[in-house]
């Protein structure tokens, strides 16, 4: 039975149980709802919940566990001699899976009968030819051990799914019966359903947290692997970034400092652009603009936040870069060699960050109580004095938080850097030089053709981990400041 059908069937059982439990409790109450502890729907939901949730949970666990079990038992069938010199057990297992899929396909297209697929021998019949006739992907000659393993793989999977279907349906029915049996007018169905909803919410929250944890762990293990191959001191304090790619040979210099410097330089240029413009526009919008202007201008400004960063990158590459070159390039001041530079990426990234700064600051300025402004006006202060001396100091911690959030966006930005700042890792003070950032290098290290187990590829994880720690620190700092601000007017 296909998986979708099984799920639908479980849900159908749950729906049936819902209707039955609801009807049952109504019948027991003698059609007088007031004698029930909860509304009738709660009794139905309780029974449906007990039917569907354990069944679906078992289904999910089974779907995860079965491939693990089948792989181990099939793996045991392949003798060490069947594994070629240059190959490995996992590659052979992949071939087994492909062959099994090929057999399925051959049966589905009518090139083979079920019986043939089960009992065929590779040394007698021409399996490889018949599989590729059926349209399956077969990379090499199918050998007897692989074919036998594939056949066993199919059998195990088929029985596994049959047992799973039976077990899941049984649990659904049993759970439903349990729920229906509980259904009596004095049963506190409402409380049980509320608890169920609570568990659901906890599950959703823990999935989000566990995913974060998983991301961190995957980074950590690869980072540790990298530091086994490459000394940490050279990574953190090396001033040269010169990875050698596979085939070219030689040792790599993988110092993070040029990349960190590029990251910070570009982010600082971006913040120098974004903070004044964003802050001033926030002050205008929240304090001076009429409601009409505000209703129009605020969404327009926030459109900037919706532009994909790759489009900003194109803008940097095609518009801002050439523009800067025409002023600062060889025809002008002579400081700039090419369109890709820290300045190009920084300016465009600054434009990207304006809505972050302005939108957050605007909310924070609006959150300053009107009583503060009234107090200041009542003392004979002008609007600009009020803003400078009362509103902004009151909003300052929140604004700093907004700026730090924008900074962590800037540090994590990739596409604008790839297109706007170039790819040369360099320690330079000239903002018109091409430089690159940590994120851009992560992309180029992982998209190259270097061996995944080499330090040149694994360094991406160490870079990612460093970046993660830096932005995490910034975010925590920002949150700390924002929280402190909240306490000011309880």
């Amino acid at each position, binding site marked *: 039975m296909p998986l979708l059908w099984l799920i639908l069937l479980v849900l159908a059982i749950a729906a049936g149980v819902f209707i039955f439990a609801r009807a049952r409790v109504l019948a027991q109450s003698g059609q007088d709802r007031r004698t029930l502890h909860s509304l009738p729907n709660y009794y139905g939901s309780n029974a449906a919940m007990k039917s569907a949730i354990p069944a679906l949970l078992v289904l999910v666990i089974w779907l995860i566990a079965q491939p693990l079990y089948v792989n181990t038992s099939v793996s045991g069938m392949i003798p060490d001699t069947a594994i070629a010199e240059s190959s490995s057990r996992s590659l052979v297992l992949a071939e087994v899976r492909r062959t099994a899929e090929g057999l399925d396909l051959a049966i589905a297209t009518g090139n083979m009968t079920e019986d043939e697929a089960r009992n065929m021998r590779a040394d007698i019949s021409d399996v490889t030819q018949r599989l590729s006739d059926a349209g399956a992907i077969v990379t090499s000659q199918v050998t007897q051990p692989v074919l036998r393993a594939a056949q066993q793989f199919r059998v195990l999977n088929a029985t596994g799914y049959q047992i799973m279907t039976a077990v899941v349906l049984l649990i659904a029915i049993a759970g439903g019966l349990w729920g229906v049996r509980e259904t009596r007018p004095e049963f506190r169905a409402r409380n049980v359903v509320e608890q169920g909803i609570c568990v659901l919410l906890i599950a959703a929250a823990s999935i989000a947290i566990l995913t974060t944890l998983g991301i961190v762990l995957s980074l950590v293990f690869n980072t540790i692997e990298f530091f086994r191959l490459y000394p940490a001191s050279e990574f953190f304090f090396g001033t040269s970034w010169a990875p050698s790619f596979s085939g070219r040979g030689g040792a790599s210099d993988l110092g993070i400092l040029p990349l960190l410097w590029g990251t910070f330089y570009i982010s600082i240029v971006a913040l120098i652009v974004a903070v004044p413009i964003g802050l001033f526009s926030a002050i205008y919008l929240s304090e001076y603009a*009429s*409601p009409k202007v505000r209703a129009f201008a605020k969404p327009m400004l926030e459109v900037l936040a919706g532009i994909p960063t790759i489009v900003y990158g194109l803008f940097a590459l095609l518009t801002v870069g050439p523009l800067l070159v025409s002023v600062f390039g060889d025809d002008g001041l002579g400081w700039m060699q090419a369109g890709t530079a820290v300045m190009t990426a920084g300016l465009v990234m600054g434009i990207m960050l304006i809505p972050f700064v302005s939108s957050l600051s605007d909310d924070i300025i609006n959150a300053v*109580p009107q*009583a*503060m*402004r*009234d*107090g*200041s*006006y*009542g*003392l*004979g*202060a*002008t609007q600009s*004095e009020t803003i400078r*001396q*009362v509103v902004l*100091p*009151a909003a300052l911690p929140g604004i700093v938080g907004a700026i730090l959030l924008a900074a962590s966006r800037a540090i994590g930005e990739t596409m604008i850097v790839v297109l706007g700042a170039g790819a040369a890792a360099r320690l330079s003070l000239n903002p018109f030089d091409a430089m690159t950032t940590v994120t851009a290098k992560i992309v180029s290290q992982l998209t190259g053709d270097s061996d995944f187990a080499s330090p040149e590829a694994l360094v991406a994880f160490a870079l990612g981990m460093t970046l993660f720690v830096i932005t995490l620190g910034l975010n925590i700092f920002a949150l700390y400041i924002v929280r402190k601000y909240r306490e*000011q*007017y309880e």
Partner: protein
Amino acid sequence: MYDIPHHTQETAVTDVKIKAKDVQVYYGDTHAIKDVSVEIENNTVTAFIGPSGCGKSTFLRCLNRMNDTIDICRVQGDILIDGEDIYDKRVDPVQLRAKVGMVFQKPNPFPKSIYDNIAYGPRIHGMARNKAELDEIVERALRRGAIWDEVKDRLQAPGTGLSGGQQQRLCIARAVATEPEVLLMDEPCSALDPIATAQVEELIDELRQNYAVVIVTHSMQQAARVSQKTAFFHLGNLVEYDDTSKIFTNPEDSRTESYITGRIG
């Protein structure tokens, strides 16, 4: 309606600080204040009483043009302070508010130190030539606000850290620091406990020596305790305006009597 202006004009012409004539206030389409004419005397505490929404706070806010900060609010009629029309185009509302100080219903100290809260007004108006003078102004204001003894050792502590009553006295001290001529108080004690209220009331009585004080209050007892003149507002109209003793013992208008005896409100 009891026609006050003609009555008081004869007795105390020289002492009139604020003179309002036929004042109308609109919030959008709502007519919030209707034909209010009143004369507020110097060195007197004038209380505005009346049920919620009767327009007494709105009228108070007209006296220092605080209503200018509300977009939909329109004010018509004449309000004269020392004979000068404050709604004249040549009058700078900012200068006016320095002259007509205001204390609000809820204590609203700035999130600054106690010292900076008081020094805020003198600083923006350039009242002190040097630090020593500013220190002196701050101390004088805090003394007048009857809070000096409580805060003199912690002038650099944040003003928001004081108790509610202290905060309100800080706000009063902040208002008197700019040397206003009139002090407007919008229910200054509504957020305070009885002890703090008593302190603020005592303070109001002292402030009368130097200023014309106008206080909006919901407490009839407070009006009777602190004010010399009382105005009763009802549904945007000024119903009755007279000496406090007369309003509370022998009101002319039946609505006033009903209100102070608690039958309407």
